């Protein structure tokens, strides 16, 4: 029986600057008793809290979809479930063989032939060479690549590589399968053809956790869903309920905007200047900024000065002053 239990799991990432990446600096620092401190705070290590206090229990038969905005912690949670990240706090217990399918073309060697790559990927999945040899013909058949399998895969098209990777990855059913968004993206035709195999394959898997932005895919494949935001689980339950909640939270977010304006109105004129609101780069940064303003406002109200990114606060206030003087 496969199962995954997470209890009070928190994950935070250190973000190192080049100064904190240097053992020379570190040694000098400890030799001088840590009294040399640069003004800019470059010797400080920022910490990104990616997951906070996650409690989850997954059992055999669960088909779980992870939804949430970019940066909500979905990928980090998948990596914790796969045992790649051990959490800073809390306990993780995983029973059963786990296969993470994050980057489907991971570890493909472009200079090796198709057959060699089938063997190589099999080894990645934890199989032995002899097990892979037994499956080689079946996999080769499924890819329909024929003699191309004797050529180095740098000569393959993206679609051909995709077929190869897909065929190998679905040749052995693990107990627990973790899928990150983007698997099969852009190759819908092949996925259609492969859906039969995928169905057979997924039926053998006890637990599937799927992270995706495609609500159609989630409601098709999953029976339960988990909604994440800012590294927390803010909703869990049946797929329909959670997708509904996700939709509401997205529609609701513009209403939260006045809060951010009161702290940093600078973001508003900036958004107005941007000629095309669909521009993903500026959209993301304005969104980032809004998130940051929300958090800062929250921290300030609670009087938690020590947690506020002061450097950034100063920069933001300065830019605010400049924008107003320009206007």
């Amino acid at each position, binding site marked *: 029986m496969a199962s995954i239990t997470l209890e009070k799991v928190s994950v935070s*990432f*250190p973000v190192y600057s*080049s100064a904190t*990446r*240097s*053992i*020379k600096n*570190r040694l000098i620092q*400890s030799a001088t008793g840590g009294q040399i401190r640069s003004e800019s*705070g470059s*010797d*400080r*290590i*920022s*910490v*990104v*809290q990616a997951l*906070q206090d996650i409690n989850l229990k997954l059992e055999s038969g669960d088909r779980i979809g992870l939804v949430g905005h970019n940066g909500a912690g979905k990928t980090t949670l998948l*990596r914790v479930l*796969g*045992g*790649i*990240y*051990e959490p800073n706090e809390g306990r993780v217990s995983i029973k059963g063989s*786990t*296969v*993470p399918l*994050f*980057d489907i073309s*991971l*570890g493909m*060697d472009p*200079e*090796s032939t198709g057959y060699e790559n089938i*063997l*190589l990927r099999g*080894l*990645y999945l*934890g199989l*032995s*060479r002899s097990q892979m040899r037994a499956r080689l013909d079946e996999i080769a058949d499924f890819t329909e690549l024929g003699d191309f399998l004797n050529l180095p895969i740098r000569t393959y098209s993206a679609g051909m590589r995709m077929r190869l990777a897909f065929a190998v990855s679905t040749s052995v059913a693990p107990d627990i399968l973790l899928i990150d968004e983007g698997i099969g993206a852009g190759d819908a035709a092949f996925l259609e053809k492969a859906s039969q195999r995928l169905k057979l394959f997924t039926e053998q898997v006890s637990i599937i956790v799927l992270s995706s932005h495609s609500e159609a895919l989630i409601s098709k494949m999953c029976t339960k869903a988990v909604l994440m935001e*800012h*590294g927390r689980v803010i909703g869990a339950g049946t797929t329909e309920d959670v997708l509904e909640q996700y939709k509401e939270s997205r529609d609701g977010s513009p209403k939260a905007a006045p809060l951010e304006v009161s702290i940093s109105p600078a973001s508003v004129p900036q958004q107005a200047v941007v000629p095309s609101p669909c521009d993903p780069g500026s959209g993301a940064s304005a969104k980032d900024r809004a998130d*940051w303003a929300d*958090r800062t406002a929250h921290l300030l109200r609670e009087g938690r000065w020590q*947690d506020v*990114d*002061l450097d950034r606060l100063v920069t933001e206030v300065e830019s605010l002053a400049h924008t107003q003087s320009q206007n």
Partner: protein
Amino acid sequence: MISSTTKAQSPLIQQLRRGLEPEQFKNAWLDIVAGWHRRELWATLGLHDVRQRYRRSTLGPFWITISMGVMVFALGLLYGQIFGQDLHEYLPFLAAGFVIWGLVSAMILGGCTTFISAEGMIRQLNAPVSIYAYREVWSAVIAFAHNIWIFVAVAWWYDASLSWNMLWVVPAVLILLINGFWMALFFGLLSARFRDVPLIVGSVVQVLFFLTPVIWRPEMLPDRALFLQLNPFYHMVEILRAPMLGHVPAFENWAAVVLIAVFGWVITLFFYSAYRWRIAYWV
């Protein structure tokens, strides 16, 4: 959610104060054992690393052999003249020294990039991270297996006679690999956190090459200098070179290398137990 923190105390000191929990040690040990069970994977990866560099050349990895051969002959002729050495003795000595140095330095320098170069895989694959250390050691072994033929050719050319002492080669290679493995884990771990470690180690190894009797003979020193005895590389080279040249390795060399292995492993196991789980965050 982002917050800035200053560490009041280095985590290492905190770790030393608190000590290691038995579970951390157990997990680290299980990681190394599980890594061994994945040997088909890391052996393949190590082979790919070596092959990749020479993939589209006709001679393939034998370019390793050729470049080593060219270096040994050129330096052999030059330094044989400078030191006034009999080539009959000097060339096999130099060839053996170079081949062994190649193995030892490859394990250390490659060890520094153990985890850095496997960054993508560490974050995607739920395999024990020790497989990357095995992989580095294994590709050093493969390169060594190509280089050793230079020594064999030189020894054959100068009619070196076989002797039973040569059997010492096997345990000597083994203990060097045991040392290489902790170096790959230790320096790999340190380099993953502190990115200037590979540069520091690189320049130290370069200096040590000249301080280690590879090109020159230990007997050339007026009296056995202390720095020779304190140089760990001298002992590591000597335990393998002596049997290759048909001598019995000195006890002091073996004692030193075994001591390095024990000491190195104790330190490495401590660091690996404490920080293994951080590697995925650091790379």
